[in-house]
């Protein structure tokens, strides 16, 4: 009897292995700090202060190491449950890492912790919303750090860790999947490590290619302003669909040729990387033609560009090549959730703004670096709705939903529908917080603006309209609104579910 009692032991209350999760976050932090070497090198090159990056890298790696040591314990296990916590915490940590140099520099525009953290979160989540108002005040190294954080966040920190680190004690695909954008439809048959490596190889190659093409435009005199520094800086924020720029006037500062190159790479960044890998590196271009998501993505871009071009032309904003370039650039930028601009659309008429607003909800393809709802979810939801209509007439009919000819699991479809509802709910909630705070502080935002800002943040787009437009800044909005946006960007980048799961009782308790 006593033996049995001792075997039963004390009741356990916590349902997840917090220590093991923190241990893994510590490990990731330890390695993440190394990323500070990149801006450090730039600072040395331009003879600027290396202190901000030494502090940021040292703090992140040091605290990571400490956390790892403190929580080291045999038998710790990171499974599906712990994955959500690890991913969510890692991204909070990454934003703090990004914010440290801004705080150390301590300038007026970025020195405040909330502003710095906002900028850091906007960087790693590839949103591109900024509180910077005076771009000339940024040193070369701080400016490149902003760009670089977006590049690191684009393909995912944990995906990167899986690709390059020797060994991560992770129990499943959950970690990878909560960072890769889009619903899990493809049953990736390969090992996680090789998947992660492939994505990063392609990502690095495309970034290099873009930097090279832009540099060539600079060297050949086609674009005087496009120095190698600018070429690399903008390649760093195009491929992750980030949107940060070193220029106050964003891409407007560069020539038409550079703008067209950036349009092309924004469009590429919005395509599923796994699909591109199969098409290009495996030399099977047929998969591109057959892919339903890609076809819808390109069709949407085409239709939206034509619609916007007609509006721009008929409002007399621009004409000819310029009208087409404005249309194509803004459509690619907003749809893929990059957030660049080559013209200040904040002053455009309402119809144009509403067109762009609608595009904010489209998003890139699943498995791309783009944010938002994602094309494939719209596609699947459309198919579900069509089936619902069909089934009102014939309740007994069995209609499996297909994507690229293969049937899609009903569980995935439910997840898609609930994702879209969560997305819209969170968007409305964010807009409410911003609207309420705006009423209390000395800031007049037009009626639509809270809605637009919230949509821009959760979709990881970046700029919205009015004062927070593409040439403006988020500096004027209140701290509560900034914190709300930080939450929206964080949740939006991790595709909401891993974050929301943490708020449920049964995640923590048995």
């Amino acid at each position, binding site marked *: 009897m006593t033996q049995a009692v001792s075997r039963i032991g004390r009741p356990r209350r916590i349902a997840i292995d917090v220590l093991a999760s923190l241990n893994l976050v510590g490990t990731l932090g330890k390695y993440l700090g190394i990323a500070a070497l990149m801006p450090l090198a730039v600072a040395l090159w331009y003879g600027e202060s290396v202190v901000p990056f030494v502090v940021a890298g040292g703090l992140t790696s040091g605290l990571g190491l400490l956390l790892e040591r403190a929580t080291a314990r045999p038998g710790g296990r990171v499974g599906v449950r712990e994955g959500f916590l690890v991913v969510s915490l890692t991204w909070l940590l990454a934003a703090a890492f990004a914010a440290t140099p801004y705080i150390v520099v301590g300038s007026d525009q970025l020195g405040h912790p909330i502003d710095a953290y906002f900028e850091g979160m906007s960087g790693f989540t590839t949103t591109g919303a900024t509180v910077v108002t005076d771009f000339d005040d940024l040193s070369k190294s701080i400016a490149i750090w902003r760009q670089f954080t977006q590049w690191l966040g684009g393909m995912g920190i944990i995906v990167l860790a899986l690709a390059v680190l020797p060994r991560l004690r992770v129990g499943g695909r959950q970690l990878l999947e909560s960072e890769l954008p889009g619903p899990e439809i493809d049953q990736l048959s390969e090992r996680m490590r090789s998947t992660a490596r492939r994505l990063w190889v392609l990502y690095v190659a495309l970034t290099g290619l873009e930097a090279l093409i832009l540099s060539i435009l600079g060297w050949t005199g086609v674009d005087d302003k496009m120095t190698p520094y600018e070429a690399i800086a903008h390649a760093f924020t195009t491929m992750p669909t980030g949107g940060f720029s070193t220029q106050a006037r964003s891409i407007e500062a560069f020539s038409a040729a550079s703008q067209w190159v950036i349009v092309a790479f924004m469009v590429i960044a919005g395509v599923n990387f796994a699909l591109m890998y199969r098409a290009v590196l495996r030399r099977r271009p047929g998969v591109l033609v057959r892919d339903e998501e890609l076809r819808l993505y390109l069709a949407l871009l085409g239709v939206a560009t034509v619609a916007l071009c007609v509006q721009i032309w008929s409002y007399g904003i621009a004409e000819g090549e310029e009208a087409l370039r404005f249309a194509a650039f803004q459509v690619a930028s907003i749809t893929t959730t990059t957030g660049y601009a080559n013209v200040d659309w904040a002053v455009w008429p309402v119809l144009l703004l509403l067109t762009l607003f609608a595009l904010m909800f489209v998003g890139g393809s699943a498995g791309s670096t783009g944010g938002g709802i994602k094309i494939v979810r719209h596609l699947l939801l459309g198919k579900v709705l069509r089936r619902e209509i069909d089934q009102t007439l*014939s309740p*007994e*009919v*069995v*209609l*499996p939903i297909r994507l690229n000819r293969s049937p899609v699991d009903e569980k995935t479809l439910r997840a898609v529908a609930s994702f879209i509802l969560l997305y819209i709910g969170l968007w409305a909630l964010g807009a409410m917080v911003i609207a309420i705070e705006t009423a209390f502080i000395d800031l007049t935002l037009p009626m639509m603006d809270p809605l637009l800002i919230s949509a821009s943040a959760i979709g990881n787009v970046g700029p919205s309209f009015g004062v927070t437009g593409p040439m403006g800044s988020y500096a004027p909005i209140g701290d509560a609104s900034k914190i709300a946006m930080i939450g929206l960007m964080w949740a939006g980048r991790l595709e909401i579910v891993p974050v929301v799961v943490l708020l449920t009782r049964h995640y923590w308790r048995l």
Partner: protein
Amino acid sequence: MRVFLIGAGQVGTTIVEALHDDHEITVLDTEGTRLQALTGRFDVAVFEGNGTSRKDLAAAGIGRANLVIACTSRDEVNIVAGMFSRREAEGATTVIRTSSAEYVELWREGQLDVDFVVSSELETAYAISRILGVPAARQTDVFADGQVQVGEFDIDEDASDDLVGMPLRNAKFPTDSKVAAIIRGDEMILPRGDVEIRRGDRIVVIGSPSAARQWSELLWPEGGTVRDVVIYGAGRVGSAIARVLREQGLSIRMIEASRDQARRVAESHPDVRVFNASGFDADFLERERIGYAQAAIFAMRDDAKNQYAASLARVHGVPFTVAIAHEAVSVAAFEQSGIDVSVNPRAVTAEEIVRFAHDPRMQQVAMLEGNRFEVLDVTTRETSRYIGMAFRDMPVHGSLIGAIVRNGQAIFPHGGDVLQAGDRVIIFTEAANAPWVVEAL
């Protein structure tokens, strides 16, 4: 010929029934009671043992067989038995039965080391496809991989006037087809140019599948062509039927009571509309306008359900009903209840397998009018005296060449064409003359 049979179930029994007179048969099965029942009816050798045991097969004397047939209801047993037969009975023809489309596919690709694979589901589906293609026919059969079709038709009041009551040489009938025989009462009339077809006759036609369909339209103008079919039951038989009919461009709806099965079929048959319903629900039948279908096929597992569902479908207006009869006795019961055609998958399978027991030059045989007439598929030998002879010069002996297959292509010969060595000849003959015909060619 020495035939070694593995499996004494319904298919095995039907095969024994067909072959026991002319062949020496050994039957192996795991169940002694089945074997006893068999020895009670037929003079065959039996052996109680396991088809997947090489020892048992050797002990039962598989080594002496010329033809090995593995026809248990389990695919794996048949495949293993077929494999051992290759080792133990060198030179014997091996035929296995399977219910998996995948194995049939593998065999066609040459990945399965047996001579022939016969699938009950596919044979049933082909039989049903033939029936739907030629709804006016009493019976049809195909030769040369479906390139040649033989049909038996009743000439009644509906038959077109272009055909009836005039000498055959003036009658307009579909090209690529031949009237092989006219049966008037007990008499068989050879179709010479001056003979005429009368109402009340029964005729046998050999032609291309499209010609067979045209015959059906000529003889039953209101019958039309079947385009829209409802299949009840989405099991293996139902799915195979759906696949074969889809390949022919028919529009298919399926009704399946099991939710999971319905989902599976809907996934694997993207262009078939699948309903998850019992098929006995009058509201459902009405709402989905099941009665508007031109034909319904009942392929559920339970014969009783098939019969009731067919009656209900008739009530709702389906004009043509075809039912799968899993039990042999159901065939008669179905016909009593007004079902137009019934198909027994095991009988169809057995019939298909029995064909392999014939003369190696003879690929296939079909029986018409009970056993009175036969259609044979025979390869001509070089020594035949008919080689090099034009068809119009051939003597009339009560047999008729309906088609020849040359280099895999079916040809419907005219008087001037010449028979060549190695041609496969599809020939209609009285059963009594069959051995003589095979000998002469």
